């Protein structure tokens, strides 16, 4: 009798523990093949800083821009070869200041506004490449990049570059 009761109690305990709800996991992979010529092996000549380009470049003009990857806490677009760059003259937090995300230029946001540009790495048909720039270019926050491509301006003064060549300055 006691044995049966005990076995029933332990069985009930096991049953409680066995109840579970179905879990769902969603995975999404948008990566696509990338043209290797996007990554330049030598630096394109005549690079101008972002701030200077924002003052003079016209829509559709071919430009070569130099800038530092950053401008916000997440400068990269997830799943697309696109990111923002900031004029190298704008200072960011030094490592000794202990800032976890110096690339967001938290202390210099006023300067960032007029010294930022968006880089969209495009394929031959002009569409943004559907691979994360960090994978495609092996670039990271605060890397100095030189990009070459067609400028895209709007009435609000925003500057974007439809880049077909990207050079990453080594050691910067």
């Amino acid at each position, binding site marked *: 009798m006691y044995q049966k009761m005990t076995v029933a*109690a332990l069985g009930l*305990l096991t049953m*409680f523990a066995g109840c579970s709800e179905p879990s769902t996991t969603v995975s999404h992979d948008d990566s696509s093949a990338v043209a290797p010529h996007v990554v330049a092996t030598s630096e394109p000549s005549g690079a101008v800083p972002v701030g200077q380009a924002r003052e003079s470049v016209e829509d559709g003009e071919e430009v070569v821009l130099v800038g530092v990857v950053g*401008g916000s806490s997440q400068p990269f677009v997830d*799943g697309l070869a*696109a990111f923002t760059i900031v004029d190298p003259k704008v200072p960011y937090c030094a490592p000794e200041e202990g800032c976890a995300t110096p690339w967001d230029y938290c202390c210099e946001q006023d300067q960032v506004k007029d010294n930022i540009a968006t880089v969209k790495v495009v394929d031959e048909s002009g569409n943004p490449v559907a691979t994360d720039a960090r994978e495609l270019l092996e670039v990271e926050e605060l890397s100095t990049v030189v990009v070459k491509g067609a400028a895209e301006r709007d009435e609000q003064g*925003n500057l974007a570059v439809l880049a077909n060549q990207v050079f990453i300055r080594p050691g910067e």
Partner: protein
Amino acid sequence: MFRLLPWEYGVRNLLRRPVRTILTLLALAVVIVLVFVVVGFVRGLERSLAVSGDSDVVLVYSLSAAENIENSAIAARTPGLLAANLKGIQERFGVKHVSPELYLGTRVEAGEASGAGLGLVRGVGLTAPLVRRSVRVIDGDWPDSGEVLVGKLAAAKLGAEASALAIGNELEFEGRTWRISGHFTAGGASYESEIWCPLADFQQATKRQDLSLVALRLTPGGSPAEAQLFCKTRTDLELQAVGETAYYASLQQHYKPVRMLAWLVVALVAGAGVFAGLNMMYGAVAGRTREIATLQALGFRRRAVLLSIVQEGVLLAATGSLFAGAVALWLLNGLAIRFTMGAFTLRIDSTAILIGCGVGLLLGVVGSLPPAIKALRAPVAESLKAI
């Protein structure tokens, strides 16, 4: 040959000292209920954040707001700009699934009896349910001008009685009186602790023309990348676009220290429980020195006696676990907890049951082993003479 003590021997031993057994059982059950409370808290918080995110929804809000949408202020024209520029927004019958929202925490008066509490109010339009698909109006109607729709956990968030938020009652916030038109649930999502009202009314009441955020529903399988790219390109708008799932995942990270602390409490409670169990089992075994020695004199090996004592401890702990599990399921599960981000319910799910009962069984084994070993180490001849 290794001969075990009969199973009934251990069971009868428990019934021979009913008061001690009941007290031990209650002590074990209390410890396990405490474990259930803490695990239920963590599971409830995790669940609330997990179900709040929809993988097809993107939140667009101010770049300077970091992870706190309450601090966000974006231009009122943003929804129109997003709708015009993004191709991946879900559209049905000519209506784009774009929900402009004004969201803030404010002091809400819920009648004289309940007083005032900090509530979360969201001004929404008619497109909000198209984007927030987990929202269900469970009674009453969608709010007209001057009315509010109250979430299932709003009373817990306000610290008010549920009856204070009955349909037809009035709330006061932002200098206006609002009639409650209905109630809604959201499948456990964080909106359940909110109060929803018409966006235009809320903007008038708060004297604001801007918005906090725009929520977009993407076409099935769509990616937030297009919205993110738009925000990066239109740097003048100072916007950021974050997938709703990623947003709530970041909140999970934000609350990680709280969850870590809760798990630490589980460990501490379990540790205290082990010591309480040890204490009780030492008492129980110490009074049975002669009995244990007699069993050895009868020819039962030490291992057999040890197993029998552990069996008693485990049986008691299993019963305590079942008792605590029943209390947790019937009394704790679904209990509303007020929290900074709103409110959520204690969740006694399969994981919580497994952890609670696992800790309970562990108490039984770990609590009974040391006193049993100590009793068995004593020489049989001396133990037989013990009083």
